[in-house]
């Protein structure tokens, strides 16, 4: 592989996973904070809130995972690797 392409791929892989972690991080923080507030207000609804929270956290995490898949494609299955 051309060294400039491999350097660019590594930097892009780092950027893609790093940048895609920002948004879900903020979102998960918001969701978890709201869930804690809800549990504090209504402790008897805890199991229901926990289930919904886990499900929505996994949805947000999926966004970071997309970034990870892009990073992995750049590192291990680089389409420009001729």
């Amino acid at each position, binding site marked *: *592989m051309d060294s400039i392409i*491999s350097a660019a791929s590594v930097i892009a892989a780092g950027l893609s996973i790093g940048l895609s972690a920002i948004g879900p991080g903020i979102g998960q923080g918001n969701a978890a904070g709201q869930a804690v507030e809800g549990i504090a207000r209504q402790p008897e609804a805890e199991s229901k809130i926990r289930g919904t929270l*886990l*499900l929505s956290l*996994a*949805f947000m*995490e*999926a966004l970071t*995972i*997309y970034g*990870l*898949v892009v990073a*992995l494609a750049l*590192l*291990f*299955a680089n389409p420009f690797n001729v």
Partner: protein
Amino acid sequence: MYPEIFDSNMFTLLAEASVGKHFYWNIAGFLAHGQVLLVIWFVVIILLLLSVLGTQNIERIPSGFQNFMESAVDFVTDIARDQLGESFYKEWIPFIGTLFFFIFGCNWAGAIIPWKLIELPEGELAAPTNDINTTVALALLTSFAYFYAGLSKKGLGYFKRYIQPIPLLLPINILEDFTKPLSLSFRLFGNVLADELTVTVLTSLVPLIIPLPIMILGIFAGSVQALIFSTLAAAYIAEALE
């Protein structure tokens, strides 16, 4: 070039990352990833054994193992009922339940069993869900399932939902049919592979104790991903049925 970097490290002997390396089988001109099939068969055999053992000597008042199996079936029944509603959930329990148990079994088989002790000529045994082919197959099955559900309930009237609420949304509605399996498969694949890679990288840095919390997180994430996948499949089917 990257896999060689991982392989060259002495400490990665038990946890080498071989992304993109496969134990190829040539079946009728098609290349199959043998290491994935082997673990899938293992998981299927385990699930079959459990269900056969659980349904032998059924008693009116369950105890022991039968109790455990009944609570497992209750769990997937709840997933289906929560999403599909009382009137439709019964006929979709087998599909949703199979998805859940299969993905759960695959994730846990990869996380718990030390497959690295078994040597293969190339590639390595791991969770079958860390191969994109497995997850894409499961996601496409889900796509077919919700098309079948919608078409069998409403006939060709099913396609009316593409121009609802307004015909302007037609492209977005069509696009949704492609993004659904895409996001389903990428979510499962990425989560499982991310976990295995994290464990590998940590093991190559510090071989003892430190990777343990990540491994436990992997077990937890594996079960959550199985739950998510089956819940989403049920939600998509419910969307097609409504």
